[in-house]
């Protein structure tokens, strides 16, 4: 055949054409599965390094989720049932490593879907997503833009969900009138600052000072806390600080004599915070991530199967490791499974279409809508209710599920105002 081609004249144009076709073919992942073949899912997140707390617990949760699904036969596609398996790649929260990992997962491992933490690592991966058409998920919708057509944020609409905690606080503790806030100066902290500012303004709570930004390398939080407490605030807001910051800040608040309300996006390992301070000090602490043994998660509208059993199994296998992301990646998989079964295939385009059919999706905390055009330039964030969690007698308990879209309908202009002020709108991020 080669000889024939050569005899017929293998022109430069033909060479370029055939090279392009070959390159395109190599770039596209193989989306077809043999009957009964195991479906592979990529897990591309930090598994080591300072940000690993938002990767590794999620992989552990996915392992439990996969065992449960496989025990029931697996994913039911048009050609029958398929077991599911996770292929992990540690991107160490490094964009270059994330890019290498994405390429490896798609080309070598043949995954059908890739889950990421997102954030700083997404820009490294986006060219791979564009080239291959692979479906990716992120926990951080600030990665979304009109160009990210194969990226979805189907679980954690960070930081928009934090408005629910402030709204609940304003409705249930109206005597709290003033607040101060601190945050690490990074891609996670700043959109959260903008959102909290909008939420406090919407709730009629006065900010006593500009948000106090600190370097992510900070280890001694005494000066930060001294400054926060200097204006005698009713509320101290810890923004979306990593647990490495939340713990020492709370310890300092305790040691420097603060007796008011604390609100934070997360409170991972809050039992340790109680041990470092006191049960009384932590009483009433508001945050946004429930323990999954909460009775409220047995409600009919919850779309996370046997949440309490999942929590029990997780703690049995990984004692003391339950955190904000332990359930989130598994929750994304639940949504993906429903979509794949609806589509009857693992083809990324078909799965995405099935996932977004009718503009609705089954979020872990109830039915939600695909949303985000105004903030992210694309309706690829799944938004609905989000729980407000309070520490009561040393244990996290869901106090209410509050609607994010309802808040946005009333106060969306405030959110856009502050997102714009902090350069966090999608058009500013580029």
């Amino acid at each position, binding site marked *: 055949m080669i000889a024939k081609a050569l005899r017929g004249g293998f022109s430069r144009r033909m060479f370029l054409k055939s090279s392009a076709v070959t390159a395109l073919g190599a770039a596209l992942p193989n989306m077809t599965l043999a009957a009964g073949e195991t479906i592979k899912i990529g897990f591309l997140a930090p598994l080591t390094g300072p940000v690993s707390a938002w990767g590794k617990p999620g992989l552990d949760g996915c392992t439990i989720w996969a065992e449960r699904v496989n025990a029931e036969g697996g994913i039911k596609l048009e050609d029958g049932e398929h077991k599911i398996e996770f292929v992990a790649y540690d991107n160490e929260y490094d964009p270059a490593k994330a890019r290498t990992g994405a390429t490896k997962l798609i080309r070598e491992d043949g995954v059908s879907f890739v889950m990421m933490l997102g954030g700083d690592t997404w820009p490294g991966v986006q060219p791979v997503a564009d080239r291959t058409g692979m479906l990716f998920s992120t926990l951080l919708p600030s990665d979304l833009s009109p160009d990210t057509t194969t990226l979805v944020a189907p679980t954690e609409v960070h930081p928009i969900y934090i408005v629910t905690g402030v709204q609940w606080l304003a409705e249930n503790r109206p005597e709290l009138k003033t607040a101060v806030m601190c945050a690490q100066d990074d891609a996670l902290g700043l959109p959260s600052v903008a959102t909290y500012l909008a939420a406090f303004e919407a709730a009629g709570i006065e900010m006593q000072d500009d948000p106090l930004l600190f370097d992510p390398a900070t280890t001694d939080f005494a000066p930060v806390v001294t400054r926060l407490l200097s204006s005698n605030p009713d509320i101290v807001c810890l923004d979306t600080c990593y647990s490495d910051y939340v713990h020492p800040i709370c310890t300092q608040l*305790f040691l420097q004599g603060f007796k008011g309300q604390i609100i934070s996006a997360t409170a991972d*390992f809050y039992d340790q915070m109680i041990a470092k301070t006191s049960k009384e000090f932590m009483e009433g602490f508001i945050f946004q991530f429930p323990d999954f043994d909460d009775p409220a998660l047995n409600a009919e509208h919850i779309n996370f199967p046997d949440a309490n059993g999942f929590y029990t199994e997780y703690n049995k296998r990984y004692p003391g490791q339950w955190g904000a992301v332990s359930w989130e990646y598994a929750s994304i998989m639940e949504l993906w499974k429903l979509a794949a079964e609806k589509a009857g295939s693992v083809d990324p385009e078909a799965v995405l279409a099935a996932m977004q059919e009718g503009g609705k999706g089954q979020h872990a905390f109830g039915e939600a809508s695909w949303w985000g055009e105004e903030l992210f330039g694309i309706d690829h964030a799944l938004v609905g209710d989000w729980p407000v969690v309070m520490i009561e007698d040393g244990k996290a308990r869901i106090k209410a599920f509050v609607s994010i879209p309802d808040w946005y309908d009333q106060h969306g202009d405030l959110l856009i105002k502050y997102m714009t002020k902090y350069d966090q709108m999608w058009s500013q991020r580029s």
Partner: protein
Amino acid sequence: MIELLAQTGLNAVYAASYISLVAVGLVLIFGVMGVINFAHGELFMAGAYVVVALYAQRFVPFFIAVAAGLVFVGLLGLLMERALFRPLRDNPLGGLVASIGFLMILQALAVMGFGVRMEYIPPVTQEVIAFSDKVRLPISRLYVIIAAVVMLSLLWYFLKRTRFGWALRASAQDPQAAALQGISVTLTAKIAMFIGAGFAGLAGALTAPLVSVNPYMGHSIIVTAFIVIIVGGVGSLEGAVLASIVYAFVHTFVTTFYDGVIADITGLMLMLIVLIVKPTGLFGSADRA
């Protein structure tokens, strides 16, 4: 406002204490051996993990765990001297590169031994000296201040009043002349490494219950220590202590009255100004700079 100033002052004294312990150790190693020890931050981390292993996990009394941290990290220093710096004695750049390699090994060992999570360490005490409602000094922070004053005083006495101390200073000033006087350069290097590393371990161990202990906690302290020794004068112990105090007060007050990011920039500006006005640092000599 007076209360705010007083509390900020107390915060700064604490910061100056642990920074000076780390910086003095770094300067001592550089002064005697001529090696920039990039793994010094990880020695600080190793001290913290000794407290995790003994105090948090095996319920050994805190101060025994801290003493163990000093000794263990001091021994790590001896290991570095023997395995890395002695074979590369005439190659300062080689020593620097070797210390970077050792840094990575220590981080990897911490990850393998303890995982990547933040370690929980129970509070040593929750007692606070309350000068007023707004001016409070936690006892756990007072321990760090006292330890720094005591250890730096002992070091000063050792260097100025003992024969070993004189030998150490002689080796730092002119290793060849010291050797001609019968001073063992190897022995002085061992002493310097043990004390320098031990001080970093002590600082890490003492502050462990007050910070987030993780395998990467050495990054920020090594940057601070380098700023401090450049401002103080590379090779000057007095300069390191004074620069630690100046840096801690500037950084703490700027953090409190502006914000932490501006405080970091101010710290770097301080270093730049010193480098422009007095390139050898506040107490540095031209031959060391």
